[in-house]
């Protein structure tokens, strides 16, 4: 045996060193943040997940059950599509229900679903020469029959790039709302080259039958630029007659170092009924910098505005055009999200992280909670201060 000491030592050394490392790594403990109820119904926050990161430990999900760290995940979990898309439960649901149809379909904005049909439309992206095509697929939810085709895009040579913002269906006509970037030779600012298109796809003829430019960036005589952007709604697959868009007036100004930057002088919100073409201004919307945009749902526009120690939530009904507002007691709004008829707001200031859930229909707060950790003194303050939350979602 004596002759073999070096080989034996090498093997023992490897097992010892690598083994110790992985045993230590596996037994590492992570700070256990938790969402605690302060007032209201516990069940409201049961499926709420707060995604964030903390210095030294990487990304984590905080919920009322505790914290789950990405570093604690097993190797195989990264191959789960529902784990990868956890921030977008709408997609996770579709991957589960229509695994075959959802192959190669990863963009939320490109999806439309009603009781009868699931549709998907997107531009080939990545290469200029392949952008000239629009891929369309539909799935009949009753007969399970799938149809897919590629349609040529009219005047594609005028555009560099295009992406789909929303898809709507009416009988055998599929409407695709997209943002197109016009080609420009003189390296001009991209913002001046945007167009919002409405493509009508005839599903029987398998081609684009109509291409309308709804809005195009325009340069005014006084040097100001008017730009348009379409807001995507949540859930984006839902049938919706009314789309919401923003009209911004921008000016090129030079900062003190002589760098050019844009300054928004006016920001207005409009609704567009794509069936009738009727546009209406959302006059109650004022963007004054202190407010935060929450989003558009199938029947409302929601935004918040900070007013001292509370935030005013405004709910603009898209059908009745009725404006309802109510206050929630938070010092600031760091993140917000709408799911169903609930508004979720996170307010993070220093070491305090407050979560408020409000019922948008009734216009009142139904839950108040805070993120806490089972530590004391300086450690507690440090951990809570270092925790950064960047997204909220409701796990289905």
């Amino acid at each position, binding site marked *: 045996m004596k002759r073999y000491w070096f*080989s034996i030592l*090498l093997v023992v050394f*490897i097992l010892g*060193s*690598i083994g110790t490392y992985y045993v230590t790594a596996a037994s590492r403990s992570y700070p256990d943040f938790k969402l605690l109820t302060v007032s209201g119904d516990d069940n409201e926050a049961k499926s709420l997940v707060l995604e964030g990161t903390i210095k030294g430990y990487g990304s984590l999900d905080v919920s009322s059950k505790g914290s789950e760290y990405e570093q604690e995940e097993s190797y195989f979990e990264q191959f789960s599509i529902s784990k990868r898309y956890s921030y977008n439960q709408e997609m996770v649901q579709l*991957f589960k229900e229509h695994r075959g149809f959802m192959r190669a379909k990863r963009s939320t904005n490109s999806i439309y679903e009603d009781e009868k049909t699931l549709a998907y439309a997107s531009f080939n992206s990545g290469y200029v020469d392949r952008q000239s095509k629009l891929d369309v697929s539909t799935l009949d939810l009753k007969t399970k029959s799938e149809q897919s085709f590629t349609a040529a895009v009219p005047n594609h040579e005028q555009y560099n790039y295009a992406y789909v913002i929303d898809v709507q269906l009416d009988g055998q006509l599929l409407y695709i709302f997209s943002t197109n970037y016009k080609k420009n030779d003189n390296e001009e600012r991209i913002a001046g080259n945007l167009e919002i298109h409405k493509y009508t796809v005839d599903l029987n003829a398998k081609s684009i039958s109509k291409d309308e430019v709804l809005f195009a960036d325009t340069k005014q005589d006084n040097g100001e630029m008017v730009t348009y952007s379409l807001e995507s709604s949540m859930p984006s697959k839902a049938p919706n007659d009314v789309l919401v868009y923003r009209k911004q007036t921008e000016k090129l100004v030079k900062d003190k170092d002589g760098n050019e930057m844009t300054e928004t002088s006016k920001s207005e919100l409009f609704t567009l009924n794509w069936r009738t073409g009727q546009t209406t201004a959302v006059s109650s919307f004022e963007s004054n910098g202190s407010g935060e945009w929450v989003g558009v749902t199938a029947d409302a526009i929601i935004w918040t505005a900070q007013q001292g120690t509370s935030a005013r939530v405004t709910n603009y009904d898209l059908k009745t055009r009725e404006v309802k507002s109510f206050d929630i007691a938070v010092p600031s709004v760091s993140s917000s999200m709408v799911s169903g008829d609930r508004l979720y707001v996170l307010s993070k200031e220093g070491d305090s992280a407050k979560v408020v859930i409000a019922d948008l229909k009734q216009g009142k707060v139904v839950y108040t909670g805070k993120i806490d950790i089972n530590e004391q003194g300086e450690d507690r303050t440090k951990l809570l201060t270092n925790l950064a939350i960047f997204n909220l979602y409701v796990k289905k």
Partner: protein
Amino acid sequence: MNRFWKLLHMEVSRFWKLYITLFAMTLLMQGGGILYVCNRYMQTVKDKMGPAASTYAQYAEEHGVVTFSDILSEAQLYFLAPIALCIGGMGLYVFLIWYREWMGKNMFIYRLLMLPTERRHLYVAKLSAILLFVIGLVAFQLLILPLESALFTSVIDQALRGSTESVTSIIQNHAFLQILVPRTFTEFVMYYGGGALFVIVMFTAILLERSYRLKGIAAGVIYVGAAVLLMIAPMLIMNRDMNDYLYPNEIFIIELTIAILIGMMSLAISFFLMNKKLSV
């Protein structure tokens, strides 16, 4: 089986002097580099503080603290150069472990092929030796990292140091170390299993060359190319920008299956060549 262990020990004992040299070089270059950068840092701190009687604590408050990870990225050249040399050395030895048998006047392969044991034992011993050497180097890096961290602690004043980092967080926050020592043990097995597959494919090419000489070189190159092509075939067939036609778990299973098939085929070809075609 006993024969295999003896052959493996033989491979280890033929390489151990060079191997210890790699260990020593890594230790000296990394340790020296970290010591140098730490001292340079302390010198900068002293220069900046000047003759004024301020304390390190005051300096840290104004300029911030330093962590071992900061020093590691500062001493990157000294830290990564020996690792690169070890990787290069092991890459070269994948070839040398075979070709050294044919070197010299009294070719050692004569005696090896005459051994009263199955020839594949010879192959498996060489393969195991390479893997053992590579993983041994990783184990050595894991051993000396805490020592290097202690070096940092002894040179940099307590008041200037940031919060202590665990070995795990030093490795997982380092762009290159987290590849050498992945986060979970499963990944470790996957990564080094992939490395073993690469060695197996290279061994097949070497044996092709040894069996058919000039024609064998061409066959070897084609074989390696075919293996690479097979590995990336799923991506090529899908021909999509995002490789999103298949779901991630499907891609993983397909790639794993292809890898296992390539490994088994390479082993089969290698054993066949060793038994029937390999000559002196």
